[in-house]
């Protein structure tokens, strides 16, 4: 590469970093004060982009019209953020953190469908910035003037935020609340107003980040999750709560991506390396590397535990094997009475139930929240499909080997993950899931790329839907029983002890990391089994099996059912799968319906469905006679 082309890639990267910084700074600010991991932050970015598109059309393609549209879009997104905070999140600040996460998933679903309804499914390409459409020549290369402007906007916003946080009373309150919001309340500060204002500022930043991209990228409905993944990476690499860190990380990642595109295809020692295909992976590689070397990000510090009076997790009640046996008998009898449709739906539910139970195992009793559990489901599915199609193994062998493959990946990913905890751990699991997804998505020749793998059908003796139903019931039922059994073995007790107090567990001689690693591998393998069973039931596998959406579906199932009960994840998986199927057959806007249902449940049953029903039952028993 010449010096000129290095410079050009650098400028490209810096221009891309501007929006990345804005959206991440907003996310970081909101997380710091409210401790809510706002999954809907990417949706706010998407709204900013769509909003700017519409407003520019309304206000005219003049410089004044363009810039008013961008600012107005950012402010409107800020108001949308306020609405989300006031209507939903404010009601559940005292609920467990994971439940707040569930609420933000629901908001993602609702916003996606609002965007679909208002702007349609087609990508919308915005206009160039009036007056800035020309290119500036630097060292013989042409750079769009708009990109240079974006490069300047990043530091300007950084400086403005810095002044706001260090030179104003609002800034002092925000920084104080980031450390100890209860104390801030005891000093007479109305937290609700503070939270709302923080949500406003954070959402404006997300909206602005989106609106500023209108001349550079088309508005589309996939932006919400891809942007939130990018923003997670930037905040985690920079250090949660550190605005300066977010700036630094945005630049590193923006530039690294630009260089991957710029380098293109290189041949080293006879091997062809396609760097431009690495763009999707490179940020997650950087993140994994940074988290291993500096577990709290480049400029971050260990998070002080927020002082919130939440009750410790109640002890789990051991599974009732009698009731489980009754269910088993009922499920065995179903195909005798029900039609083909019910059998197929239940087969799906079995797979997702095992997927959800394995996720519950790791995030509930083991205390390691995973945002990327789809990695193992998807890797299991792909392993099954590829062993069957590419290696030519019999279906039965593929089904047995697939969980082992998923488990093998969990050995590698888990080794890194158990070195972290809390939000950082969750983000790292997401990073590994995205790395897996990117490889599957881009390795056309081996995995079939975006088309996936076809013709993954079970052997002749299992081909009948009813027979396959029994296979799925046997595999998934055995997997769930194994996980439950393990939970009440000494190994399970060690995990729960480690969740409740890592220090005390280690002080009595437990090698906690080792056990957590083993737990990671166990649930990885069983999620892989769920994926493999699922793959053969559908006959095909697509990259969506490994996507963020699949991971969040799993989280929704677990949280919907209730993370504090054993049966919750199964109930959650059944209700979610059934409801999605029912709603999707009736309306194109099934996501919004699902989102609203989840929100209703979140606001009515802050302990999850099964937890809420148990509480109701307890109240019924204790009623005055």
């Amino acid at each position: 590469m010449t010096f000129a082309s290095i410079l050009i890639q650098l400028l490209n990267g810096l221009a891309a970093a501007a929006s990345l910084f804005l959206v991440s700074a907003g996310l970081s600010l909101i997380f710091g004060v409210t401790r809510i991991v706002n999954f809907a932050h990417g949706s706010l970015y998407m709204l900013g982009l769509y909003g700017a598109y519409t407003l520019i059309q309304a206000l005219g393609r003049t410089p004044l019209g363009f810039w008013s549209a961008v600012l107005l879009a950012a402010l409107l997104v800020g108001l949308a953020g306020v609405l989300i905070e006031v209507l939903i999140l404010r009601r559940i600040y005292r609920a467990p953190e994971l439940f707040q996460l569930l609420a933000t998933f629901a908001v993602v679903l609702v916003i996606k469908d609002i965007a679909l309804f208002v702007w349609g499914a087609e990508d919308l390409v915005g206009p160039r910035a009036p007056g800035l459409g020309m290119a500036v020549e630097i060292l013989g290369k042409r750079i769009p003037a708009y990109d240079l402007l974006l490069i300047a906007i990043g530091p300007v916003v950084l400086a403005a935020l810095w002044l706001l946080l260090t030179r104003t009373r609002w800034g002092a309150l925000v920084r104080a609340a980031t450390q100890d919001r209860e104390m801030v309340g005891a000093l007479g500060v109305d937290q609700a107003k503070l939270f709302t204002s923080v949500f406003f500022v954070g959402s404006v930043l997300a909206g602005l980040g989106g609106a500023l991209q209108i001349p550079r990228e088309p508005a589309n409905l996939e932006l919400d999750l891809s942007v939130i993944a990018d923003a997670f990476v930037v905040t985690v690499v920079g250090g949660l709560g550190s605005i300066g860190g977010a700036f630094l990380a945005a630049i590193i990642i923006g530039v690294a991506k630009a260089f991957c595109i710029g380098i293109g295809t290189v041949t080293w020692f006879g091997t062809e390396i396609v760097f431009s295909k690495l763009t999707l992976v490179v940020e997650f590689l950087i993140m994994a590397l940074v988290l291993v070397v500096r577990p709290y990000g480049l400029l971050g510090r260990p998070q002080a535990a927020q002082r919130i009076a939440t009750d410790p997790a109640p002890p789990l009640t051991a599974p009732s094997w009698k009731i489980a046996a009754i269910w088993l008998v009922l499920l065995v009898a179903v195909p005798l009475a029900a039609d083909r449709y019910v059998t197929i739906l239940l087969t799906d539910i079995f797979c997702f139930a095992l997927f959800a139970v394995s996720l519950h195992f790791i995030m509930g009793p083991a205390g390691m929240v995973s945002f990327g559990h789809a990695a193992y489901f998807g890797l299991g599915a792909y392993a099954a499909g590829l062993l069957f199609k590419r290696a030519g193994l019999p279906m039965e062998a593929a089904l047995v080997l697939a969980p082992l493959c998923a488990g093998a990946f969990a050995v590698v990913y888990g080794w890194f993950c158990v070195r972290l905890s809390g939000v950082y751990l969750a983000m790292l699991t997401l990073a590994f899931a995205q790395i897996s997804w990117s490889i599957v998505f881009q390795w056309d020749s081996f995995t079939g790329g975006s088309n996936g793998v076809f013709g993954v059908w079970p052997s002749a003796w299992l081909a009948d839907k009813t027979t396959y139903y029994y296979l799925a019931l046997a595999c998934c039922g055995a997997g769930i029983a194994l996980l439950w059994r393990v939970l009440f073995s000494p190994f399970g007790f060690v995990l729960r002890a480690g969740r409740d107090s890592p220090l005390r567990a280690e002080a009595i001689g437990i090698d906690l990391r080792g056990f957590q690693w083993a737990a990671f591998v166990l649930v990885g393998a069983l999620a892989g089994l769920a994926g493999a069973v699922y793959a053969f039931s559908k006959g095909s596998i697509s990259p969506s099996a490994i996507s963020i959406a699949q991971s969040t579906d799993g989280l929704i199932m677990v949280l919907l059912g209730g993370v504090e009960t054993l049966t919750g994840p199964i109930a959650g998986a059944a209700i979610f799968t059934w409801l999605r199927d029912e709603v999707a057959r009736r309306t194109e806007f099934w996501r919004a319906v699902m989102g609203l249902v989840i929100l209703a449940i979140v606001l009515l049953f802050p302990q999850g469905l099964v937890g809420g029903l148990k509480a109701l039952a307890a109240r019924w028993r204790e009623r005055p006679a």
Partner: protein
Amino acid sequence: MLQVRNLHAFYGRAHILHGVSLDAGAGEVVALLGRNGAGKSTVLKAIMGLLPPAEGEVAFDGRRVERLPPYRIARLGLGYVPEERRIFTDLTVSENLEVGRQAARAGLPPWTEDKLFALFPNLAAMRERPGGRMSGGEQQMLTIARTLMGNPRCVLLDEPSEGLAPIIVEQMARSIRALKGEGLTVLLSEQNLHFSQAVADRAYIIEKGQIRFGGSMAELAADPSLREQYLSV
């Protein structure tokens, strides 16, 4: 000024306070004495709304406050100084004070930074120092000063002498007497009887979440069996 009647409070399922009643009159310094775990801090947290009481009444300045959130109680003029200090370690001394600042209260001269630095001279020299780089005694001074910035009429002080060097304890006693001189009502929780005798007008003794004694410091001093039974370790 402050009346507490039949206060019950729980941590999760654990019943901590069993019907606590106490009073603090305007301008009085009242000590709440008891051993570790007797429920002293819980009483203060329940009054402040940080641990909403399950049952009972708290009246402040003639107004019922037991259902209000902490920030509303603070704005009515009830200040809270926590036991663990809870200084904002990333913020400077001045910024810590700024977070505590509330509007002036009718009939009371408002606290200003300068007035507080006169009361706690150690703090004056470290306005720009982050709270995390101060000694325990300095942090204790700052946490009281921070609460005073809210111009309270009554202050709840949770174990102000705990973990401080003897010379700082003396300084603390002088500061509390100065607050009384300003006309403030003070309810402080203490294990240190000697310290309490130096600052308080009256005392209550709490044991296992119940008030076992209430009376003047002289009455308490006259009855060694009370000390033996409830305070000695």
